[in-house]
C-alpha cells in the first residue's frame, strides 16, 4: 500500500503539489490526470523517491521513503516498475541489454535465464526479435513498449506509467492500454497511470485522481468521474479552454 500524506512540492516560487493526501491500495488501477504542467509526473516521481517532497511523507508498505537509508530505498524500488514518457531507454545499449541490465543486478539468474526473461518480456509487448536493435532504430511507440518490457521483466508489485500513450496514434494507444490491462490482471500488480489521454482513462483505469491547481479536484471511480457534474471535471472532459476554475 502506498500512502501519500500531506505532501507539498514547489519549484522556485511555484507551488506544484499543495498538501496532497491519498492512498493507493494493492490492486488499484489508478489514473492520475490533469492538465499539462499540473504536477502529475512530479507526483509520480515523488512517489518513487526520485524527488523529495518539501513537506509531508510517503509511506510504501509501512516504510517512509524519505526516512529510510539509500540502500533500503533501492530495495524498495525493486518492487516498482516505471515506464517513462519517452521510454528513457539507455542509448548506448541494445533493447536486450536495456531489459537485461536490472535482471543481472537484481536477480540471481544465469545468462540463459536472463535471455529467456528478456524474450518473454518482449513477447508480452509484441516486440519479439528486437533484442539486438538499438533504441535509435525504434519508433516512439516501440520505445514505450520496450520501456514497459523493461519494467515488467522484474515482475514488479507496483507499475508506474508516466504518460504512456501521449503522442501515439489511436491504434498504438489502444495497444499500450491493453498491455497495461493485461499486465495489471496477469501480474497481480498495482497500476498508477499518469495521463491526460481520455481514452487511456476510460480503458485502463478503475479509479481517477484529478489534479487541479496543486490539489486533488476529484478522487473516485472512473465511471463517477466520467459522469461528474463538477465544472472543472466537465471542462477537462470537454476540453474547454475557456473555463477558469
Amino acid at each position: 500500500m502506498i500512502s501519500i500524506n500531506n505532501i507539498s512540492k514547489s519549484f522556485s516560487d511555484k507551488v506544484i503539489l499543495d498538501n496532497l493526501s491519498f492512498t493507493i491500495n494493492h490492486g488499484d488501477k489508478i489514473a492520475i490526470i490533469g492538465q499539462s504542467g499540473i504536477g502529475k509526473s512530479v507526483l509520480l516521481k515523488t512517489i518513487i523517491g526520485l524527488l523529495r517532497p518539501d513537506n509531508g511523507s510517503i509511506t510504501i508498505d509501512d516504510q517512509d521513503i524519505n526516512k529510510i537509508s539509500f540502500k533500503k530505498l533501492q530495495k524498495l524500488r525493486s518492487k516498482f516498475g516505471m515506464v517513462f514518457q519517452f521510454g528513457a531507454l539507455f542509448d548506448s545499449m541494445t533493447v536486450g541489454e536495456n531489459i537485461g541490465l536490472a535482471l543481472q543486478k537484481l536477480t540471481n539468474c544465469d545468462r540463459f535465464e536472463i535471455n529467456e526473461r528478456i524474450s518473454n518480456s518482449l513477447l508480452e509487448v509484441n516486440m519479439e526479435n528486437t533484442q539486438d536493435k538499438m533504441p535509435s532504430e525504434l519508433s516512439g511507440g516501440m520505445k514505450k513498449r520496450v520501456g514497459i518490457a523493461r519494467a515488467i521483466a522484474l515482475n514488479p508489485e507496483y507499475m508506474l506509467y508516466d504518460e504512456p500513450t501521449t503522442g501515439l496514434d489511436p491504434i498504438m494507444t489502444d495497444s499500450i492500454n491493453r498491455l497495461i490491462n493485461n499486465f495489471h490482471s496477469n501480474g497481480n500488480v498495482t497500476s498508477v497511470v499518469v495521463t491526460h489521454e481520455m481514452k487511456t482513462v476510460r480503458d485502463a483505469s478503475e479509479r481517477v485522481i484529478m489534479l487541479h491547481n496543486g490539489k486533488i479536484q476529484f478522487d473516485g471511480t472512473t465511471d463517477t468521474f466520467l459522469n461528474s457534474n463538477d465544472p472543472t471535471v466537465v471542462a477537462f472532459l470537454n476540453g474547454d479552454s475557456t473555463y477558469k476554475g
Partner: protein
Amino acid sequence: MKNIILQPFTYIISLFEHIGRYFDLMSKTLRSFTTWHLYIGFLPEHMMKLGISALPIVVVTGLFSGMVTSVQTAYQLESGFIPDSYVGGIVCVSVLMELSPMITALVMTGRVGASIAAEIGTMRVSEQIDALETLSFDPVSFLIMPRVISGAIMFPVMVVIADLFGLLGGFFAATTSIGISSYDYVYGLRDWFVPWYAIFGVIKAFSFGIAITSIACYFGYYTTGGAEGVGKSTTQTVVVSCITIVILNYLLAAILL
C-alpha cells in the same frame, strides 16, 4: 540598477553552490567505491573509449609540441656559444614536465570532458538517470565512478604516449629543419634526463585525469533544460576544466618541486 549591483553577489553565491554540490557528489562517488563489483565490468569499456577516442589527437599535439619546442629552442640558442646538445635537453625537460601533461590535459578536456558531460547530460534530460534509479541502480557508482577511475588510469597513459611523441617530434625537427645531429640531440636528452621529470608529469596527468572527468560528470549529472542545457553543461565543463588545470598545474609545481 539594483540587478547590476547584485549581479556579482549572485555569481559568487552560485560559485559556492557549485563547489558545495561538486564536493557532495564527489563524496558520494568516493563512498560508492566499495560497490566496485557493480561498475568494475564497465571499466575496460570506459578506458578503451577514453583512450582510443583521444589517442590520435594526443599523438598529433604531442608530436608538434616537441617539434616546435625544438625549433624555438634552437632559435634562442643560435649564438653559437651554447652546444647543440642543449636543444635535446631543453626539449626533454619542457616536454616531460610541462608541455605533455598540460597540452594533453587541455586537449582531453575538449575531447573527453565535453563528451562525458554531453553523454551524462543527455542521460539526465532524457530521464535515463531516473530510469537507472527506478531500476535500483545507484547512478553515481554506475555512471561517475567508472569514468573517474578510467580518467585516473588513462590520462597518465596518454601523457606517457605524448611524452614519447614529443621527444620524437623534437628529434625529427632538430635533425631535419635545424640541422642538429642526431647524436647531439640524443646526448642532450640523455644528459638532462632525470626520472623525476617523467614521474612529475605522470602525477600531474593523474590529477588532471581525476579533475577533468569528475568536473565533466558533475556538470553532466546536474544538467537541466533539454538540449540547450546539455550544450551549456558541455561548455561549462570545458571552461571550468581549463581553469582548474592551470590552477592545479601551478599548485602541483609549487608543492612538488
